């Protein structure tokens, strides 16, 4: 299958224009960060790609036939189900239940939550809930993985833990991933390429490829200082 692409996407909410003639390419089996200020329309873009909302104009191309996993800003776990049951809930659409259960348990263990499989979400910390959400997204065998500020609601240490967990899980199954964030460090730490958006209505102001292997990067981005400075300049110039 070729790379995923969207073209000419436009979206308005009443008088508010969120996306205007937005086109982008998302390379297959790589992590693309969509970096932009809060309220730029990043979540709207993901929701259009996932088919949750319809675009007013444009095309989502081959995303239309893809299956998705989604890790949201909030974990969105069903509070009356155990952590394992939450993952099995999304796996229930798979034809092979045993395969689904095996994957659920495997990714839960990878996320370090094996001992909490039968715990209710309310018994977990915020970081653990977000890990469970990430494990659910990876366990579901989708074509495309969408992450919407999935690491922003936790403290820095937990955030780095989650980003490292993401890298570890992603290396096992290199899935096409679109990751929206307003945090430059998260983008530099995780992405193979970064699409930088302007403020609303979102348009692409820069696209950056990061050649350096993810395992060789540090969270503070000092090893990518040239790209970091370039992105800072782009973001500040368009603020």
């Amino acid at each position: 299958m070729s790379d995923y692409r969207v073209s000419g996407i436009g979206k308005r909410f009443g008088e508010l224009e969120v996306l205007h003639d937005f086109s982008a390419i998302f390379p297959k089996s790589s992590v693309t960060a969509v970096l932009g200020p809060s309220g730029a329309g990043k979540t709207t873009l993901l929701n259009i790609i996932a088919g949750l909302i319809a675009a007013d104009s444009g095309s989502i191309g081959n995303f239309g036939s893809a299956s998705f996993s989604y890790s949201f800003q909030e974990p969105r776990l069903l509070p009356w189900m155990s952590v394992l049951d939450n993952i099995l809930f999304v796996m229930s659409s798979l034809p092979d239940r045993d395969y689904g259960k095996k994957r659920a348990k495997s990714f839960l263990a990878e996320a370090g939550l094996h001992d909490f499989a039968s715990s209710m979400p309310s018994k977990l910390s915020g970081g653990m809930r977000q890990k469970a959400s990430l494990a659910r997204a990876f366990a579901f065998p989708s074509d495309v993985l969408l992450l919407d500020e999935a690491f922003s609601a936790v403290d820095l240490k937990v955030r780095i833990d989650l980003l490292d967990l993401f890298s570890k899980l992603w290396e096992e199954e290199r899935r096409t991933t679109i990751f929206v964030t307003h945090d430059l460090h998260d983008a530099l730490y995780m992405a193979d390429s970064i699409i930088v958006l302007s403020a609303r209505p979102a348009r692409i102001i820069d696209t950056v490829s990061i050649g350096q292997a993810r395992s060789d990067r540090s969270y503070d981005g000092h090893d990518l200082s040239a790209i970091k400075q370039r992105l800072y300049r782009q973001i500040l110039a368009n603020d």
Partner: protein
Amino acid sequence: MEKGDRNSSNRSRFAYGLLGIVLAILLWEIASARVGVSLILPGPAEVAASFFSLAKTAGFWVAVGGTFRRVLVSFFISLVLGSVTGILAGLYPSVQHFTAPFLTIIRATPVMALILIIMFWFPAGHVPVFSAILMAYPVVHTGLYQGTIATDRTLLEMARVFRVQRKTVFFRLRLPAIRGDMASAAKNSLGLCWKVVVAGEVLSQPSFALGSGMQSSRLSLDTPGVFAWAIASIMLCGLSEFLLGLVARHLQAGGSSDE
């Protein structure tokens, strides 16, 4: 809450409840003594004596059984019917638009007027049941409708992205999400069923009914007897609400099983 704290809280609740009952009986005794006419306001002791002598008769228990059966039938029918239409109305706005005028009319109709109208249509034994269904059904419908439309949209959105089947979403997301609303609607409708069934029995006078016993005591100017029948009705309503609470707690605790 820790188990020790919970026990202490339960003890405190029980103690305050008991104190409230004792105070009410004391006030009743004082009021009865002031009135001084048993025909108008009998005292607690007199009513208790009447209640125990009534409880020794087979007719009392047959009446209790008859009323209990009517309450259960009307409760279950209104619960099932209200749940089905309430959930459907929450899922499909057209169902809500369709049922809204009917529910508005029922809610605005006085209970007594409804019972009197139904008395023209149904035999005496069925009047309390139909009256109670008509009064309790809107309560269940509205509770379940509100619960269904208030289901967490973000969870539904999550299920949609992962393409979870509609059947699974309904049984594992929507139904558990409205369990609390269902328990609350069931509790409210059960209390209402007791009141309407007894009121319906008083007016329609079926055989084997608490309400008929109450009316018969009233006609023979046996005020302590009327009070005794009323106390029996209150106790049975309290008992059934307690049992329903146990069932609801059991259902809520057992809702997280694996597939």
